[in-house]
């Protein structure tokens, strides 16, 4: 399941949706809004080119299901105004054995951060400043070349 939404999500509810006797392992990634020590922000704003982002997330999800033989995969990403500590993104992968779902979960969030049409802005006193892409995020995604080739 892919979802881009302004609404918050509930981990237990999302887990119940994909819980199955076929699965022996689940891996979760939850991203939240961080208060950087050196940046006193009020929160973040997330902008999205939704048609493209959904298409890109579907490709990442379908690839991961095939590559790691997942039984299921949930990707939820929030957009709009978020406050410090709010949930941003959830990835859940489910498979018979743990190594597949753990590796797939890490690949999915790495690929999302490097490729999917979402843009983060820091918000402070009604001003929005675009967050620059981090080289370490691109390098982390590119490091998957050896794993998935």
């Amino acid at each position, binding site marked *: 399941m892919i979802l881009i939404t302004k609404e918050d999500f509930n981990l237990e509810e999302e887990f119940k949706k994909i819980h199955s006797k076929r699965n022996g392992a689940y891996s979760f990634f939850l*991203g939240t809004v961080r208060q950087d020590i050196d940046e006193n922000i009020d929160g973040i704003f*997330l*902008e*999205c*080119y939704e*048609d*493209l*982002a959904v*298409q890109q997330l579907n490709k990442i999800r379908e690839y991961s299901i095939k590559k790691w033989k997942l039984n299921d995969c949930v990707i939820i*990403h929030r957009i709009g105004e978020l406050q410090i500590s709010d949930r*941003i*993104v959830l990835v859940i992968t489910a498979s018979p054995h743990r190594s597949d779902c753990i590796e797939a979960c890490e690949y999915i*969030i790495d690929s*999302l*951060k*490097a*490729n*999917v*049409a*979402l*843009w*983060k802005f820091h918000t402070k006193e009604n001003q929005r400043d*675009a*967050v*620059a*892409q*981090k080289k370490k*995020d691109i390098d982390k995604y590119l490091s998957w070349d050896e794993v998935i080739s």
Partner: protein
Amino acid sequence: MKIQKSHDLIEFPDNITFSKIKNELIKMDSFYDEIFKDSSVKYFLNLNEITNENILINDGDEIAFLPPVTGG
């Protein structure tokens, strides 16, 4: 670089290439020049990345200029 708008509707003649559209946009507003000089910006046509700038643009097509992504 700040465009301050997420989308716009612009009319062009029939049988125009993406490359010619870039030139037309630069004539319309100088901020497009900044966009096209920025090698980190990716171009999309109807949700597919443009790899050949001589591609023909048709009536109703959607072109996107996307800066590096920062979600997650």
